[in-house]
C-alpha cells in the first residue's frame, strides 16, 4: 500500500454497502459483548476471559461437528449450554472469591484466559480450523450493488434475537427481577430472601453461555484458532464500559462503534479505522466514565 492510496474517494454505492457491513460488525460486537454486559452490569466483574468463552463456543462447535457430526445450527444452542456450564464452574471456583476486589478479578481472569488458550492449543493444536456451515448460509446476498454474505445477515438477526431474549429474561421473569434486585442492592435483596450467590452464579453462567453461542456463530464466519478470543475481548470491553454496563447502552454503543469502524475503514483501511476508534473511545471514557446513558458520577 502506498501513501497515495490511503484515502478512498467517496462514492455512494460502496459507501452504502459499507454502512450495511457496519451493521453486521455492530451485531457481532454486540453479541460478543452481550454476555459481558450482563456480567459487568450485574456483578461489576471484569472478565478478561470472556474472549476465551467465545473461543470455547467456537471449539465446542467444531468438536461436536467434527467428532459427533452434529449439524451447525444445532451446535449453537448446545454451545450455549456447554460454555454456560464452564462459566458456572469458573464462577464457583474463582470469581466468587474475588467479588470485593475488581482489579484482582481482572487479573485472575486474565490468568484463566491464559490457561484456556494454552489448554486448547495443547489439545487441538494451534492451526486454524474450519467449521462447516449449512450451504445456504455460505452464499452472498446480492441485490444491485449490495454484497452481503448471508451468514452476516443471519448473525445480525440472531444477535437481535439474543438481545430480545436477554431483555425478556431480565424484565419478564422472576429470575430477572432477582438479578436486577441484586444488581441494585445486594444487601437489601438478601433481606428479601434472594440468594445473591445463586444469582451471581447463574448470571455468570448466562453471560458465559451468550459468549459461547456467539463463538459458535462466529465459527461460521471465519476460521477458528486458540487465541481468537483475544481479538474480541478489548472491543467487547469497550462496548460494555462505554455503554455503561447496561444492555441498551451496549446496543447503542455497538451500533455506533460498528458504523464508525466501517465508515473509517471505508475511507482509509481497517487498522487505521481501529486506531481512530480506540482513541475516540479513550477520550469519551475520560469525559463520561459512567457510560452513555448512566447518570453522572462526577464529583458531586
Amino acid at each position, binding site marked *: 500500500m502506498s501513501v497515495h492510496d490511503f484515502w478512498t474517494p467517496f462514492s455512494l454505492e460502496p459507501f452504502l454497502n459499507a454502512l450495511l457491513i457496519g451493521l453486521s460488525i455492530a451485531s457481532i460486537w454486540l453479541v460478543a459483548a452481550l454476555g459481558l454486559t450482563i456480567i459487568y452490569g450485574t456483578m461489576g466483574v471484569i472478565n478478561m476471559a470472556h474472549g476465551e468463552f467465545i473461543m470455547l463456543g467456537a471449539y465446542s462447535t467444531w468438536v461436536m461437528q467434527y467428532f459427533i457430526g452434529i449439524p451447525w445450527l444445532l451446535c449453537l444452542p448446545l454451545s450455549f449450554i456447554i460454555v454456560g456450564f464452564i462459566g458456572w464452574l469458573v464462577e464457583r471456583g474463582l470469581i466468587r472469591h474475588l467479588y470485593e476486589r475488581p482489579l484482582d478479578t481482572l487479573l485472575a481472569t486474565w490468568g484463566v*484466559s491464559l490457561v484456556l488458550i494454552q489448554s486448547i492449543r495443547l489439545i487441538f493444536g494451534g492451526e486454524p480450523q474450519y467449521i462447516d456451515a449449512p450451504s445456504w448460509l455460505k452464499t452472498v446476498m446480492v441485490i444491485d450493488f449490495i454484497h452481503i454474505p448471508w451468514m452476516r445477515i443471519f448473525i445480525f438477526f440472531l444477535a437481535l434475537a439474543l438481545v430480545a431474549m436477554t431483555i425478556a429474561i431480565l424484565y419478564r421473569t422472576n429470575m430477572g427481577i432477582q438479578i436486577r434486585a441484586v444488581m441494585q442492592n445486594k444487601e437489601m435483596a438478601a433481606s428479601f430472601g434472594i440468594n445473591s450467590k445463586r444469582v451471581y452464579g447463574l448470571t455468570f453462567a448466562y453471560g458465559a453461555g451468550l459468549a459461547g453461542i456467539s463463538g459458535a456463530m462466529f465459527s461460521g464466519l471465519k476460521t477458528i484458532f486458540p487465541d481468537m478470543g483475544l481479538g474480541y475481548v478489548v472491543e467487547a470491553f469497550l462496548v460494555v464500559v462505554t455503554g455503561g454496563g447496561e444492555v441498551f447502552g451496549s446496543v447503542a454503543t455497538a451500533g455506533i462503534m460498528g458504523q464508525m469502524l466501517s465508515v473509517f475503514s471505508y475511507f482509509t483501511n481497517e487498522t487505521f479505522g481501529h486506531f481512530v476508534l480506540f482513541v475516540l473511545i479513550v477520550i469519551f471514557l475520560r469525559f463520561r466514565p459512567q457510560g452513555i446513558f448512566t447518570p453522572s458520577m462526577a464529583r458531586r
Partner: protein
Amino acid sequence: MQRANLYHDKRAQWAVYLLFFGILAIIPLSMDDPFTMNQYARYGVFGMLALSVSLVWGYGGILSLGQGIAFGMAAYGMGATMQMQYQDPVNDPIPSFMLTNELEALPTVWEPFWNTSVGIILAVGVPVVFFIIFGILMFQARIAGAFVAIMTLAMLGAWYSMAYDMQPFTAGFNGISPPSAFTAFGVEVDPYSNMIYWVSLGVLTVLTLGSKALLQTKFGTIVQAIRDDPERARFLGYNVAYYQIVLFALSGLIAAFAGLVWVMITQFVSPTSLDIFFSITFVIWAAVGGRMSLFGAIFGAMFINAAQSYVGDEFQATWLIILGAVFIVVVRFAPKGLAGLFEYALSFVPYRVRETPQSRIDVSSQSE
C-alpha cells in the same frame, strides 16, 4: 529495642540489591558464549519492564496494562535511529522497506533520526511526553482502578493498529530490521558480545537503584499514601493527580529505556512490541515476583523467562498453563507474590533493631 522484620531493614535491602547486581555483573567473566550473552541481555530488558510495572502498580496503585506503549514507541524510535545509522545520506538515503512501499523521499518524521543523539532523545522522550499527556487525561479526571486498566489497554491497541497500518513509515507487520548494530561514540555495540550484556545490565542497575532511592524519599512515601487513600492525601494538601502523572511518566521512562535496549539486542522492531498480550505479561512477572518489591518484580521477570526458555518450545503450552495457574493463585492468595512469601518467612528470623528516639522517625518505614 524493638522486634522488626529484617526484610524491612534498609541497609539489608541495599546490600541485597548491590550484591545482586554485583553478581550479575561478573557473570560474563565466567562464560564465553555470545549467544547466551544476548539471551541474558534480554532478561535485563524484561527486568526493566517488570520494574516499570512494580513502580506504577505496586507503589503507585495504578494498574496500567499499557506499559507496552512506551516500550513499543521507544523501540520504534531506536529502530529508526539504528536504521538511519546504516543509511548513507548521499548514496542510500532511503530504507529499503520504504522503497518497496513506493516512497520517493524520506518522510519528514524520519528526518531527525539521521542524528543519533536526537534519535535517542526522541526514542525516550516521545513516550514520556505521551505518558504525561495520557496521564493528565486520566488522572485529572480521577479515573482510577479498572478504568485505568481498560483505557491503557485500549490505547495500546490503538498504537498497535497504528504501527501495523502505517506501512510506509513503520514497515507494517514486517517490522524494521536495521542491518547494522548500534554504534555510539565510534563503538559498535555487538548484540552478541559481553558488551551488550553489560549495557543492558548497566541500564537496569541505574534504573533500579534510582527507583529505589526515589521510593525512599518523601516523594516515595507520598505516592504510597496516595495509593492507600487518595482522598486522605488530598485533604492533607497534596495534588494527587500531579503525583500520579509524575509517577506514571517515570514508569513510562523506564519502559522506554527497555524498548531502547531491546532493539539494540534484537536489531528488530515490529508491531509485536506493542502487542497487548505481551504488555499484560509484564504485569504477570511483577505480580508473581512481588509487585511491592522492585527486586521481587525484576527477579520474577528473569526467573519466569529463564524457566520459559529452559522448558523449550515443545512444552511452551504446558508451561504457560502452569504460569497462568500460578498467576491465578498469586492473585487470589498471595498478592505480594514471591517477595511477600519471603517477607513472611523472614518474620520468623529473630531480629531486633536498636534505635535512638531520633532515628525512630527515620527508621520506621515499610517501603522496600
